[in-house]
């Protein structure tokens, strides 16, 4: 356990440095004059002009060599200071707190909904492999997964917000607002994970140990709880860990569609406005989250799978 944590900690440090450096280099490589892009982000399309861009360049010291700016950032990072947003002027850490809070709510509900859908659908499909239920689940999953989350979100808006008028279209401010975006996210996640669960269930059901458990006289539900559930939990957990990478992509699209003020939205705007501190901060936090989630997956794996404990 300690080994897992130490390795992940080292990984987190390396990640922080490499993600920050990479964003810095990539933003510098993007075409166009940075000062103008930042001025457009700050003052809006109608007010961006050369005078505004020059004021921005002067204020932020953009004419200084890039390497100086890089080392200044690195020093700030070491002293745990993420800097101020180039567009709003507010501390990055403050903006991240707000955005991250919203994104965590969205992602958390998304994962919960995904689990609530994927587990029952996957397990039933696995137990009744190749039945009509299984085939319907496969077709539906393929249908949902084959379209961008954006379309799925629009479809849900049409059904629940426009036709039935049960839920608000977009925005934030209460429990009702989180349902559609998290349902969109949950459905798109569940579309794949239910198939993983189905395959794991089927494999476990057809395994010798499950047959043996039944032959020795265990009732179905007990054999299921003792021999199938633990065996489907491990691959599913590992898969959901990987799926979180895809979650970032989904979150950006969903947040834009539903006007949800989360980190994905913040990230896309920071790219347009060349807001480097904001970009580095966002990428950094996402990187840390990624390491954190993977650590949690590792730990649960360690706790769930006796084989891992033995080999260590």
């Amino acid at each position, binding site marked *: 356990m300690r080994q897992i944590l130490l390795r992940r900690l080292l990984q987190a440090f390396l990640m922080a440095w490499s993600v920050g450096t990479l964003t810095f280099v990539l933003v510098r490589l993007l075409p166009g004059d940075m000062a103008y892009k930042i001025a457009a982000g700050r003052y*809006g399309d109608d007010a961006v002009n050369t*005078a505004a861009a020059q004021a921005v360049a002067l204020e932020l010291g953009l004419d200084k060599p890039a390497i100086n700016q890089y080392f200044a950032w690195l020093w700030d990072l070491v002293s745990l200071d993420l800097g101020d947003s180039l567009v709003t002027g507010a501390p990055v850490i403050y903006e991240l707190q707000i955005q991250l809070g919203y994104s965590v709510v969205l992602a958390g509900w998304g994962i919960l909904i995904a689990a609530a859908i994927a587990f029952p659908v996957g397990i039933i499909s696995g137990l009744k492999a190749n039945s009509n239920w299984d085939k319907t689940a496969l077709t539906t999953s393929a249908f949902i997964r084959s379209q961008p989350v954006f379309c799925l979100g629009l479809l849900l808006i049409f059904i629940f917000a426009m036709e039935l008028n049960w839920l608000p*279209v977009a925005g934030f401010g209460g429990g009702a607002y989180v349902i559609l975006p998290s349902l969109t996210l949950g459905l798109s996640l569940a579309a794949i994970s239910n198939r993983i669960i189905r395959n794991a269930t089927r494999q476990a059901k057809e395994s010798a140990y499950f047959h043996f458990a039944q032959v020795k006289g265990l009732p179905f539900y007990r054999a299921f709880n003792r021999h199938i559930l633990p065996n489907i939990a491990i691959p599913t957990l590992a898969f959901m860990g990987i799926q979180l990478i895809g979650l970032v992509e989904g979150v950006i699209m969903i947040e834009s569609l539903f006007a949800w003020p989360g980190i994905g939205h913040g990230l896309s705007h920071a790219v347009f406005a060349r807001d480097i501190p904001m970009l580095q901060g966002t990428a950094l936090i996402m990187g840390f989250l990624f390491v954190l989630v993977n650590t949690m997956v590792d730990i649960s794996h360690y706790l769930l799978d006796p084989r891992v404990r033995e080999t260590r």
Partner: protein
Amino acid sequence: MNSVKRWLTILMACLFAAACAPAPPENTIIISGPFEPVNQDTATAGYIFTRMQIIETLVDVDDEGNLTPGLAINWHPDESFTQWHFELRPDVYFHDGQPMTAQSVVNSLRVAMGKPAPFNTRLIKHAEALSEREVLFTLTEPFRPFPSLLSNYTTAILSPATFGTFNRIKSLIGTGPYQIEDFEPPHNIKARRFDNYWGEPATIEKAEYITGHRSETRALMVRTGQADIVYNLDPSAVSSLSTNPDVKVFSTPIPRTTQIKLNLALPSLSDPKVRQALSLALDRTGIAEGILRVPGVEANQLFGPTMGVWHLATAPTPTQQLDRARQLLDDAGWHEGDDGIRYRNHHPLELEMITYANRPELIVIATAIQDQWAQIGVNLNVEMENASAIPSGHHDGTLQTALMARNYANIPDPLGIMLADFTSEQGGDWGPMNWSNPDVFSGLNELAEETDDAAYQRTVTQVMTAIQNDLPLIPVVFYVQQSAVSARVKGFSFDPYERSFRISTMQLEQ
């Protein structure tokens, strides 16, 4: 299996319990638009706070673009237009309860002039409080349209308590009929009525602004009653909303013109015949009716009909004349090659056009222009960029052509814009580029000091006709702003100068 069923039932119950679209509260009007209030700085996001009627300027603007009293009730220049005397409105209070004085006005403007604004901030040499209610501005040069600059959102008057160290804005304290209650940048502004307002107090108690990034989302919000007013709708959203009985769509012409910026330093574009041909090849009616779905907005000049004397009322409606365009290109020495593209001295007639994504119709218009110019043998490559690519390309000289929607409402007196953009070969970031016409340059400089109204109008007509004949920029279509309003809102009107949402004069039907 039972526990799975139980969890599913609980989840469904939760979903349905929460599943009631919240109707807007009875005392709150909810507005949505694409503008992002990124912070409380008036230089950055002042335009959204003036629209929410939280902050106000010394000078106001009516629907026709005439200057009207705002926080100042009276102003007059000396004979040379270099000294301006402003009389302030009495009994005006800031949201923090402090009275507005000449000293607070001077202080507020001094801070504003230290930040970027859509005009030359070094114009004001000196501002002095003569008494409690009088301010005297001394300019570095004569400037006739000076009062119109003081209608710009960057010059809004703020309470001294607004500013912290280094004049950073602590909290925005203005004089408007609404005051900030809660602000979550860049998504949401909540405002509540200011009871000590100098004018008629607002009827609606609370107003909320929600940033709705996509036109589709905003259209759905007004359709489902989640928002009362939505701004900046695209043509497809308008046509779907116009059949809805609970929503009313308003189309208002505004002082903004979609036009093509040209770099006249290019050998091809320096020839007026080529510019004429490019203009004649445009099917403006097709763009207006097919893309924008608003007939009659074809632009035959830079300034639309809302711009007073600056609009040439007698100019004919432009029509596409491909044969005449081809003839002009032949005359200019550009002859069609085997590949359908025109060449002169083995150089193809090829141009780059940049445009930007924030106004969704621009890219569609650009591709239509690409096709229309191809019909006369011009090869146009369209590139999608950030809006800042236009001033940036102007500055470093790399821009060839750009399709842009130029805002003329920022400074309501067009003379301010004309003096900035059309009086030197350098041109303006959002104006002409490498264009020279000494008659226009001197005519405009005369206007800055002209005292006789009839002579003023005569010179304006001469200048605008000369520009129209020379085509340093090719006008395409005048802008029409589309907004949708829910049936419960009474007294809605749209400010063509986009300075105010006019919430304080609206009512909500109970």
